[in-house]
């Protein structure tokens, strides 16, 4: 809590630093080009910054993480949540002028989930999209708000395939040259035109270089990885951050060398979350053993986060596990975290090798999953789906007790081992006004404006 308070103070301090600019101008200005620099891929599922700038979903989460309408204006369920019908927003057009139609949405959704959809069938009915499923889909509207189901034009009216990503979002793709992704304002966006005329996103830029560019004015928005948030605050950068924006989880493949749940249980007890949070992520992360953060569910404290080597040895017993492969995505901190976990597991009798690249043959995978919602049930479903596991058959979201039971039962298999709640933060330059982050830490570039815009 103290740490969170410190971060909040930092954010407040940063805001106060910019106060003259904020209070000096009451209305944001239109125009200008916003320069953003990132270390990763702008189209990366889950964390790609450009995806939500170009594309929208049928539904969306607002700044508080609650569900709101987007391309669908309303929706209803029948047959005990086995059938859902989403009525499309009228008058919406794609960035190339193609009108949004139910057929376009169905084609985009089928392309998004590529056979691993939560529904059995989706079809266009007039100006609405109808989902049917063999299992109940009580949280389908929340799922459709996730980054996974953004709507992009897949087939033009003349039957041709469009080049590049074309969506209905506030920005349209205009080019990609010399490692810079260029986006222009979508004048016909159903949400309204964004404040800036263009956004240039320099990709695969090292964080140190991003900060250097920020300091000399070559960048307006740069990333702050969780492990560098403390340093950024110490350097008095203008930081916007969201605590508990991502869940760091260790996913154990239950079909291979770790098919035995006792081995997975030993791993869950052997991991030293405190060392990860305090050292690698510089006390900017919160150790957790539950999927939902404490401030969302209120029961996260019931899942012990401490390391218990005695329990790990007891559970493992005489079981011998073959050499394991642990893969991690993300930057240096994620790789260091993977190495630390491997070291923890070595003490518990496991022989673990780490790899920086995601591997299909990995027995363990270290992921950072976005927490896009603040609705407990929606977030739980989103996290379970993002972790790659099948949702539990018996879902009980009616009460907090039922929710706890569902999560507890799910975690009992130790296929998904929650480790940390991670923040997500950006630093902005002095020109930037009103850059806000979603609950998952994604920047809302459309709402940002520039001080020196003409």
């Amino acid at each position, binding site marked *: 809590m103290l740490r969170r308070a410190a971060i909040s103070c930092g954010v407040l301090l940063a805001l106060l630093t910019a106060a003259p600019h904020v209070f000096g101008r009451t209305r944001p200005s239109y125009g200008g080009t916003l320069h953003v620099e990132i270390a990763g891929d702008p189209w990366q599922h889950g964390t790609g910054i450009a995806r939500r700038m170009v594309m929208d979903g049928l539904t969306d989460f607002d700044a508080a993480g609650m569900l709101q309408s987007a391309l669908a204006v309303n929706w209803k369920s029948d047959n005990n949540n086995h059938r859902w019908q989403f009525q499309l927003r009228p008058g919406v057009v794609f960035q190339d002028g193609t009108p949004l139609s139910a057929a376009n949405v169905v084609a985009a959704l089928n392309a998004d989930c590529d056979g691993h959809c939560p529904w059995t069938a989706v079809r266009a009915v007039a100006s609405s999209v109808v989902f049917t499923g063999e299992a109940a889909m009580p949280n389908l509207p929340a799922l459709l708000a996730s980054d996974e189901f953004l709507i992009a034009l897949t087939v033009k009216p003349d039957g041709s395939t469009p080049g590049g990503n074309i969506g209905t979002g506030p920005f349209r793709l205009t080019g990609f040259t010399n490692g810079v992704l260029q986006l222009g304002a979508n004048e016909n966006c159903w949400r309204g035109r964004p404040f800036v005329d263009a956004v240039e996103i320099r990709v695969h830029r090292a964080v140190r270089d991003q900060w250097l560019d920020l300091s000399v004015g070559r960048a307006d928005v740069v990333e702050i990885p969780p492990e560098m948030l*403390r*340093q950024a605050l110490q350097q008095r950068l203008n930081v916007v951050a969201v605590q508990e924006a991502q869940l760091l989880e260790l996913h154990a493949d239950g079909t291979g060398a770790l098919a035995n749940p006792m081995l997975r249980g030993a791993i869950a007890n052997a991991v030293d979350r405190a*060392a990860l949070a*305090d*050292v*690698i992520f*510089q*006390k900017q992360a919160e150790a957790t053993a539950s999927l939902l953060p404490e401030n969302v569910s209120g029961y996260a404290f019931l899942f012990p986060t401490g390391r218990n080597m005695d329990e790990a040895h007891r559970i493992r017993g005489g079981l011998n596990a073959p050499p394991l492969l642990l893969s991690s995505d993300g930057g240096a901190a994620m790789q*260091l975290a993977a*190495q*630390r976990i*491997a*070291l923890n597991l*070595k*003490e518990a009798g496991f*022989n673990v*090798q*780490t790899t920086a690249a995601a591997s299909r043959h990995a027995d363990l995978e270290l992921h950072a999953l976005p927490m896009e919602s603040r609705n407990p049930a929606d977030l739980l479903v989103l996290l379970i789906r993002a972790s790659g596991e099948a949702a539990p058959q018996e879902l009980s979201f009616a009460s907090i007790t039922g929710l706890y039971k569902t999560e507890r039962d799910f975690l009992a298999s130790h296929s998904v081992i929650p480790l940390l709640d991670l923040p997500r933060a950006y630093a902005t330059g002095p020109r930037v006004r009103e850059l806000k982050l979603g609950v998952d830490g994604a920047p809302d570039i459309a709402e940002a404006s520039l001080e020196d815009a003409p």
Partner: protein
Amino acid sequence: MSLRQRLLLLFSLTVAASVAAVAWTVLVRMRTVFEERDQQETALFVSQFQREFQTRSSEVAAAVGRLAGSDRARSMAFEIAQSGDAAQYVTAAQTMAQDAQLDFLEIVGPDGNVVSSAQWPARFGYPEAAVKAAPQTAFLKQEELPDGSTVLGLFAVRPIGNSAPSVVLIGGERLDRAFLGELPIAPGMTVGLYTLAGTGSEPGQAANASASAHFNAQQLIGVNGNLAGADRYAKLIESALTSGEQSSGILYLTSRREDSANVTAIPLKNESGHVLAVLTVALSRAGLVEAQKTIRTTAYGVAAAGILLAIIFSLWIAARVSRPIERLAQAAEDVAEGNWETRVPEEGPGEVEVLAQSFNHMTEQLKSQSEKLVQTERVAAWRELARRLAHELKNPLFPLQITVENLQRARALSAEEFDEVFRESTQTLSTEIANLKTIIGRFSDFSKMPKPELEHVDASKIVKRVFSLYSGGKENGKIEFKLELSGEPMPLEIDCELMHRALSNLVLNAMDAMTDGGTLTLAARPTESGVELRVSDTGEGLTPEECERLFTPYYTTKQHGTGLGLAIVQSVVADHKGTIAVESHMGSGATFIITLPRANR
């Protein structure tokens, strides 16, 4: 084996043995020289290695010392000591190690736990045992890496600041291929470094050397990577690991002798005396093997030339020595065969010439003695002949004399009585004169033995002929005749009439020996080189003395024999280049054995 062959063999062996002895001596001496040179080079390399090691140790200690004295390190140590929060320095060691060009660097907090590790960044928070009893000088230490491998490093420990407990830096350089590459390696020398696999129970802890004595070829590296034939080093390295002492030996890296090396394994120990690694110094024996090959080839060439010279020399010696001796040997054989006219040239070196002269003198003496003996025997024979003639003639002459005297006295008797006496006397005279004729005829026959007229005939035929002649006689009713013939061919070149007479003579003698009856056996069988004819009786037999004198002319055991029968038989057999012998024991009969040479066709 002839003298010439013996001389050739002797000379060849002498030359070959001499060459072999010289070659062996040279090879042994050369190997000793090479081994001494290898030992000197190894000792020199070890000395240079120790100097390089000391230099590296000083450099590492200095580098770590400079880092510990830097403002950055002092500031960090102060911050850690003041706030107790070391988390912000979790990646500091990597940057500092990079700046100081160290392969290993760990920042260890006052509590003895790792604050930051350059070689294993995830090892923060774990205790670092090496700092507790670290010496002032650099020391060897095995460092475990995140991938599970273990590397050997030269480490130094330096505290930051003077107060205790303090933050400590432990940094080092890797002893690897690059380190080996900087050593002064002489041509033909191969240097390797064997490091033990980590077996520490805690991550990053030093390996327990004694528990890792089992050889693993992957852990032996050379300047250019893994050493060729690394498996062959196993015994030496394991010996050095277990004993902690330097061990040496010759290793054959491949099946080729040129790929062998004199290898010395030098254990590298840490401060507590545990062996952490083994430095191998291999000096190629290619030069030695090449030189040995050259010497062997030369020795073979010299030996071959020597043997050739020995052949030539032996031929020359043969011409000078062995040939006269061979001539002497041949002449001796001729003399042995009765050719007493044989002479050898009186030439040759020294004793050989004297020997030839002596041989010729000997043969002359032999011839002279032989002629004297012949003359003596001839006189003796004439005397014996005269004695026998006198004896044979005396017997009929005495009745003749008595008869003539009776006739002279009968003239005084009446005519009728005179006629009676005259008739009896003339009858007696006729009888005795006939006896004289018979005696003279026998002597005439003995002196007129005809020359054999040889013809090809099987021995069985001549034996069967004699058997059929005598076996059917009525006067031989008490004697049983047996014929024993071999089924194999027994070809002979003989005069059938003479041989028939000889066999008949033996059969008649046998019949005379069995007056009371018995068994007479005629047999013929082939031998290795001829044909054997046997005439056996079951009479009283002969005494050894009789056997010896049996074939002497005019010797007889019969009351009215002339003693010429068996002499004639022996003469016939000798004329056919055969031999005759007798086997007899008293009371068990006698067997006469004629052995004749087998006909060629």
